[in-house]
């Protein structure tokens, strides 16, 4: 199973340390391997260091690719977290 979609980073601080940590904590809950792509860079969804390397700021589009038995729910959960601005106020 493979699912992918593109999401817009909407929170003011972008993919900073806390947002990257929340995303990685969500990613490890799934069996699917989760990869994020932005511009020419890619990052494993379960690695905070790799996610911070993306330097994703507000307004950037990030492609999320999930591969594995639970790819569809994984993609939905990651997409929802990004859309909810990582549960941040702004």
């Amino acid at each position, binding site marked *: 199973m493979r699912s992918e979609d593109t999401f817009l980073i909407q929170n003011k601080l972008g993919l900073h340390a806390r947002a990257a940590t929340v995303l990685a904590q969500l990613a490890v809950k799934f069996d699917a391997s989760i990869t994020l792509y932005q511009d020419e860079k890619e990052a494993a969804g379960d690695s905070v260091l790799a996610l*911070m390397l993306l330097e994703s700021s507000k307004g950037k589009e990030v492609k999320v690719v999930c591969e594995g038995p639970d790819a569809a729910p994984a993609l939905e959960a990651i997409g929802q977290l990004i859309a909810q601005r990582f549960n941040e106020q702004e």
Partner: protein
Amino acid sequence: MMKLSSLICQDCSKAAVLFNSKKRILEFISELAHNKLPYLAQQDILNSLMAREKLGSTGIGRGIAIPHARMNGAQDPLALILINEKPISFDAIDNRPVDIFVALIVPDGDNSQHLKTLSTIAEKLNNKEFCKQLRSAQSDESLYQIIVEQS
């Protein structure tokens, strides 16, 4: 790409320190940062570091933590690196104890600059060989030399 060595200076590089708790190491970080940025009160730096940890641990896995404080009065980002002789419990994301601490004092508000600073640090720490070298540094000088040579 920004260089890690442009963020860290020798008197902010401490090898083989020995602290046994989150609180103690954050206190030491705030003391070092205050010496470097005397216009920021040590207690304010400490409070800001502690408040950030309360939101969620900055232990990002593989024995690494990046405690940081966004401070209103800070002018440029400052990074400090400490290698604790024994890994300590830091509520890290992977539950592993932490021995590499890269602390950051950053100006409040400049979000794109902050993301660039984080990515500079992540790029180096993502390299396992580099982390191994940091852990084996015997003195503050040799720790600082590794950073200058490798970044």
